[in-house]
C-alpha cells in the first residue's frame, strides 16, 4: 500500500498515460485508453462475404452497424477461437484523417495501466513480426514480460501490418 501511494505521488510529476491492455494469443498489447469507447461481450457477428479475412463482419451497436476486426488475423496469428473471455473493444480511430468507429475482437481484455511515457522503450527494429511504425514502443511489465503499445490509428490506415498472405488469398478469391 505504502509503495503504491508513493508511486501515485510520483505519477503526478511524470508524463503518465493511461492504456488498456488486451491479450492476443500469448502476447499482450495495449492501446491509448482515450481511443476506447466501450468494451462489449462477444455477440453474434454477421459475416460479410468476400471481405478480407481479418474483417470478421458487422454487429449492431445501438442501431448502428459496427465493423469488427479480428486482431489475431490482422497480426497474422490465425483466427480467434471464441471463449468466455473473448471481447469486442469499441474504438474510435482516425483513418486517413477520418474518424471511424470500429470494434476489435481480442482474446481477453487485461487491465488499465498507467504508464510513464519516459519508461517506454523503443521497439527493436530487427526480429519483430510487426512493422516498427505500428508500435509506439515496449513497456516492461514486471520481470520478464513486455507489453507492446500500439499506434492504433496507423494499424487501420493500411492493409499491411504483416498480412501479405491474407492479401494473396483475397486476390485468389476474386479470380475464383
Amino acid at each position, binding site marked *: 500500500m505504502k509503495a503504491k501511494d508513493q508511486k501515485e505521488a510520483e505519477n503526478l510529476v511524470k508524463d503518465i498515460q493511461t492504456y488498456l491492455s488486451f491479450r492476443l494469443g500469448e502476447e499482450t498489447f495495449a492501446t491509448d485508453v482515450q481511443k476506447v469507447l466501450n468494451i462489449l461481450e462477444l455477440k453474434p457477428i*454477421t459475416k460479410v462475404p*468476400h471481405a478480407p479475412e481479418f474483417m470478421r463482419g458487422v454487429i449492431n451497436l445501438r442501431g448502428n452497424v459496427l465493423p469488427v476486426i479480428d486482431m489475431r488475423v490482422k497480426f497474422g496469428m490465425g483466427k480467434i477461437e471464441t471463449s468466455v473471455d473473448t471481447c469486442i473493444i469499441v474504438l474510435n480511430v482516425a483513418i486517413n484523417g477520418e474518424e471511424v468507429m470500429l470494434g476489435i475482437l481480442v482474446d481477453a481484455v487485461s487491465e488499465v495501466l498507467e504508464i510513464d511515457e519516459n519508461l517506454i522503450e523503443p521497439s527493436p527494429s530487427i526480429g519483430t513480426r510487426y512493422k516498427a511504425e505500428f508500435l509506439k514502443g515496449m513497456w516492461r511489465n514486471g520481470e520478464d514480460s513486455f507489453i507492446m503499445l500500439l499506434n492504433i490509428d496507423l494499424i487501420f490506415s493500411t492493409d499491411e501490418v504483416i498480412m501479405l498472405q491474407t492479401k494473396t488469398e483475397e486476390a485468389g478469391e476474386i479470380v475464383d
Partner: protein
Amino acid sequence: MEAFREKFKEEANELISDLEQLVLQLEGNKTDQSIVEQVFRVMHSLKGGSAMFGFTLIDQFTHLLENIYDKIRAGELQVTEDILDITLNAVDHLRRLIEETDANFAELAAANKKFIVRIEQVLNQNSPKIENVRLILDDEDVIRKTKTYFISFDPSPDFFQDGSNPLFLLDDLCQLGEAVVVPKYSRIPKLNDIDPTECYMGWNVILTTAEGINAIMDVFIFTNNRSKIEVQKLSDINLLADKSYRKILAETLANKESIVIEALHSLTQDLEKIHSENETLIQRKSSASGHGRDQTISSIRVSSEKLDDLINWVSELVTIQAQLSLFAQQNHDAELTPISEEIEKITRRLRDDVFSIRLIPAANMVTRFQRLIRELSQNLGKDVLFETKGTETELDKNIIEMLVDPVMHIIRNSMDHGIEDTIDERVANGKPATGKILFNAYYSGTNVYIQITDDGKGIDLAKIRRKAIEKGIISPEVELSRKETLDLLFLPGFTTAQSITNLSGRGVGMDVVKRKISDLRGQVEIETELGKGSTVTIKLPLTLSIIDGLLVRIDDTHMVIPLNSVYKVYEYQHEKLEHAINNLILADDERVPAINLRKHFNFETPPPAIERVVTMEYNDHYIGLTIDEIVGEYQAVLKPLGTMFKGQDFFSGATILGDGSVALVLDPNKLVEQFAKNEIKIGG
C-alpha cells in the same frame, strides 16, 4: 455579424435562383407584367439585404439592374432578348459577388464596373416603343388590381404647429394613384375669428390605387393623433375609370359637407355590377396565363442537419418498432398485439411523413436545364424549345443533387446529337422548325421516372453496331437485340459522334451517366426511333435510406434483397440445382441462369435439402439467386457498411433486424454485374 452574413448569403442564393427562374419565364412571356413585377421585387429584396449586411458591390449592382426593370414596369422600356441576356449574365455575376471578401474585392469591383457600363447602355438606348397589344394588356391590368378608397382627412386645428403641411400629404396621396380631392370648408369661421396659425380645412378624397390600404395609411404616418383620418374601401374596382360616375361623385361630395359612407356605397353598387361582368372575363384571361397573383410561401427554413437527425431518430424508431412487433408475435398476448399493431401503423405514417420532408420538387433542378438549353441553342445555332412536365414530382434532396449532372449530360447529348443541325433538315423531314426537348417527371409505384425526350434525328442502331465492331467491343457475328444494342451506348469509351465538339462526343459520357444513376440505385434506358427522336428514361427510388425488401437467409446470415428487383421465388431440391447444367434452372418453362449465393459467398456449411431461387430482372433477362430460405418481407433502414469494407459494393449496406442482429442488404445489379465479369474472365 458573420453569422448574419452567412444567413443572408443563403437567402441571397435562393433569391438569385428565383431571379434566374423568373427571367426564364419572362423569356417565354415577354409582356407579362406580373413576372416583371416579381423580378423587380426579388431584386429589391436582394438590394435591401445586401446593403444591410455590407455587400456593397451587390447593392450597387442590383440597384442599376433594378432600374432596368423599373423602366419596364413603367412601360418606358420593353423586354428584349438583350435585356434577358444581360439579366442572366447578371445572375451569374451576382453568384460571384455573393462571395465578396476583402481579398477579391478589387477583382470583383472591376468586373462590376464592366457590367455596370453594359447596363447603362441598355438603360439609355431603348426608347419607349409600345405596341397596341401591350397597351391593352396594361389597361386591363391596372383596372384589375386597382381598388377605390374613400379618405376623409380633417387635420386638427393645431396641425401647422409642428410644421406639417396638409397639401403635401394630399400630394402624396395623389401619387398613389388617381384621386379626386374635394375640400371641406364647413369648419372655416368668420373672417374676424380666423387665427392664421390654425387649420380649418378638411378634405374628402376618392382615390384609386393598386397600393393597398397600408400605403394610404403610411401617408398619414406622421400626422398627430388629434387629426381625424378615415380610410374606407369603396370598391374593389376602379370607379374613377368611369367618367360619368366621376362627375356624379364629385358633385355629391361637393354638395354634402360630411359624407355618409352608406350613401357612397349605394352609389357605387350599380357601377360594380357592370364591372363585375368585365372582371370575370379578365380573371379568366389572367388565370389562363397561369400566374397566381398572390404567391404566399408558407414554408419554414430548417437546417438540413436537424432534418438528418430527425430522420435518424425515426429510423431507430422503425428498428425498435420491428423488435416490438417480433416480440408481440412471439408472445401472443391479446393486449400487446393490438398495441404493437397500432404502433406499427403510426410508425409507418411517421416514417413516410418525415421522409417526405426531405423531398423537394423536381422544379428545383429544371431551371438549370432551361438555362443550359438556352445557352446551347445560342452556341449551336439550333432553335430549341424546352418543355417541362410533372416538375411538381418530388424527389429526395440528395437524389436531386446527384441527378443534376447526369441529366445535364443527357440534355447536352440531345442538343448536340439529337436535334438536327439545320432547320432545313428538320423541315425536309416534315417536322416543325423549332426543335423540342421535353423533361417529364412522374411517379410509378415506388419509383420516380424522369424522361428526357427530343424530337431530333434519333439513333441509328446500325451505326452503333458498326461502331461497336470497329472498336472491338463486340465481334461481327454476335447477334444483339435492340435493347442490347442500345445498351452499348452506356459502355465506357463509346461514342457515335462523327466529330468531337466541346459539348459531347468525348466518349466520357453515357457510361458516367449510367454509373451515377446506378449509385442512386436507379436505372437508365434509351429508346429511339430513327428520324423521330430519342427518349432517355431514368428510373429512381423514392428515397435512398429505406428499402422494401425480401429477407432471406443463407446459413446463419440474413440478407435483404430489394423487393423492386424480385420477380418470383421458386423451390428446388438441392440435387436438382447441383446437377443443373451450366447453372441453368427451369423456371416456368424458361431456362434461367442461377447464381448460387451459398457457393459464391463461400459458405462452408452443407446446404439444406430444399433450396429457394429468387428470380430477378437484369437487363431484360431473368437471373436466379439461390438461397436457403425466405424469411419474409422486411422494411430495411439502410445503414452504411462503412469505409472498412471497400470491395463489397454488391452490398449497398446493412440493416438492423428486429432481434437486434445485422442483415446485409444486397445490391442485385452490382452482384450480377460482378458475377458476369468474373464468368467472362474465366471463359476468356
